[in-house]
């Protein structure tokens, strides 16, 4: 196996799939599971490196592949975490698997969050629904290097309390120094002790120093299209706002053509994109 810069990809054959064993399956919500995977090949496992925000093509024998972001901590290479909602042909079949069974991995692909560039700055993380998955690794990474970053604000919105994943993680993050976790639900139940409304309402509840802040965003495109203008009105330039975008992906290497957004191939130019670059294309019907 040829490993290129920590990628599990043979440069001559980026289509090659590597078996990985499910070592843990965690039920996050009714139709959402987190799979902890361990690459079977020891050499592959030791050399696999990724940055938070990148994704893998996750493969199920006889069924196919699907692009899924990596949620695990980039510092922890022994296992890989993928949170998967059972919604399509491949993900529904994957949801049936149990610990001990095999999936395939190809990756990592794409551009992750600009965590080096965020050094020394305050970081505001805005996510909605399952959009919290691609930032988990970034939050863990920053908290592990706490003194390199300014204040960290995690702002997350869900439809109903049952849609909230990673309860323990949110709980732990909120207890870290200079780290705030704000949650919103627009269809809460009687147990909900956080904000009632949509995630963008929470912007009013946080102090933002626009010149020192970087924003990481992931969630439904409508959340980004409505949320970003509010942040920009607060003085944060579009160049300091990063969004993780989603499109249909078959190859992961910019060849299959499905993930185009204007001039970009989101699988290789993204999925994390600086907002000013994609702003002209987001919200255009059919793009």
């Amino acid at each position: 196996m040829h490993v290129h810069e920590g990628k599990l990809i043979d440069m001559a054959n980026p289509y090659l799939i590597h078996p990985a064993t499910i070592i843990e399956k965690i039920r996050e919500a009714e139709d959402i599971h987190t799979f902890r995977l361990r690459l079977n090949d020891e050499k592959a496992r030791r050399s696999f490196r990724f940055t938070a925000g990148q994704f893998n093509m996750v493969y199920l024998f006889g069924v196919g592949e699907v692009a899924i972001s990596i949620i695990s901590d980039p510092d922890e290479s022994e296992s890989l975490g993928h949170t998967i909602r059972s919604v399509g042909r491949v993900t529904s079949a994957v949801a049936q698997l149990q610990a001990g069974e095999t999936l395939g991995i190809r990756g990592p692909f794409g551009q992750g969050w600009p965590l080096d560039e965020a050094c020394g700055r305050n970081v505001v993380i805005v996510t909605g629904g399952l959009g919290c998955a691609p930032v988990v690794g970034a939050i863990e990474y920053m908290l592990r290097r706490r003194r390199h970053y300014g204040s960290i604000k995690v702002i997350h919105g869900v439809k109903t309390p049952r849609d909230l994943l990673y309860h323990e993680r949110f709980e732990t993050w909120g207890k870290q120094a200079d780290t705030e976790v704000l949650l919103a639900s627009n269809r809460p139940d009687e147990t909900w002790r956080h904000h009632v409304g949509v995630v963008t309402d929470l912007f009013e509840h946080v102090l933002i120093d626009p010149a020192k802040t970087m924003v990481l965003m992931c969630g439904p495109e409508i959340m980004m299209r409505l949320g970003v203008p509010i942040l920009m009105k607060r003085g944060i330039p579009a160049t300091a706002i990063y969004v993780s975008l989603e499109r249909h992906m078959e190859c992961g290497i910019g060849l299959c053509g499905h993930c185009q957004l204007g001039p970009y191939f989101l699988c290789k130019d993204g999925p994390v994109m600086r907002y000013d670059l994609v702003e002209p294309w987001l919200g255009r019907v059919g793009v």
Partner: protein
Amino acid sequence: MREIGVTAVASEIGILSRSDFQRFFDILCSKEYRIVGPTVRDGAAVWETIRHVSDLPIGWRDHQEPGRYRLEQTGSKEIFGVVHGPQSLKPFVFTPREPLLQIERSRDGFIARPTPPQREKVAVIGARACDLAGLTIQDQIFLQGEYQDGYYATRREGLFIIAVNCTRALQTCFCTSMDTGPRAKNGFDLALTEVGDQLLVEAGSEAGAELLSALSLSPATHKAIAEAAARVDACAQSQVRRLDRTRLPQALYDAHEHPRWDDVSARCLACANCTMVCPTCFCHKVEEAPDLTRQRTEHARLWDSCFTQEHGHIHGKNIRPTIKDRYRMWMTHKLASWLDQFGTSGCVGCGRCITWCPVGIDLTEELASLVSSSSSARA
């Protein structure tokens, strides 16, 4: 004037009479090439493995118009009277279906093994300048990105390309305005120009020069070369279609809300023919095809098209649900965003999408409508 094209390697241009053309085939056979050329099948010119000059569509001509392709017998001895059929060079290198991996269940889960294509020497006779331009674009996509596609590379390495300079333009041709033809400028091993009873032969590569010297042709006269050049020039002059690239890509980006998209989408059937015949379209999907034992499965890539329902599908929603969205995606990518992505247009002016469109949609006409008054029509 010493050359018909501009980058010929050999300074000499050889001349061969039509009746001697079989020698060309014999030499290619002796060098163990499988020869592929245009043949007449089901009313169109299609690539087939051939052995003899007589397998070529001698005496046939094609007539192409929006939504119409017809072959006719002229009774002449013209060898390359048919300009082109629905296929470009694309299927030789980026095949409609390419098996990528054979995956077998194992004790450890599964084992995936690449299934590279067999190396094969293939000599293609009759590629046109637009086809060469299309192949150059495919090369850029599959060979010059971050990853070199090994499947494509293996097929590409085996290709020996014998181009034919066009001396007759179709109604649907607009290569002149795309600066890709009708003269084969580069990307060929040998280029032929048919003038009367003779074929002028020039080399465009080392391999081509080697074959040219093996043919030991007599050198073409200045007069014959001038005559060939004049015919190719006349072909360029005679093209009736053109595509105005001057304000691209921005003019098309600006035309996103133009009412013309409603007009064209009312005619478009979303059949995907345009993308299948296009020499540059590269979209593909990956198919998993398990056998009946469920112990083995083949992982293969297949041509896909942005006109299909699935292309813009993402968990529960479709980015491009309407034909309007899909036609706009195709054309905006082909003529505008392709420039941003690859520094070149995605269109080579071959006109196939016009001919093979069942309702005769003409992208040159659509573009002209879209960019002429786009600013006033912006939402």
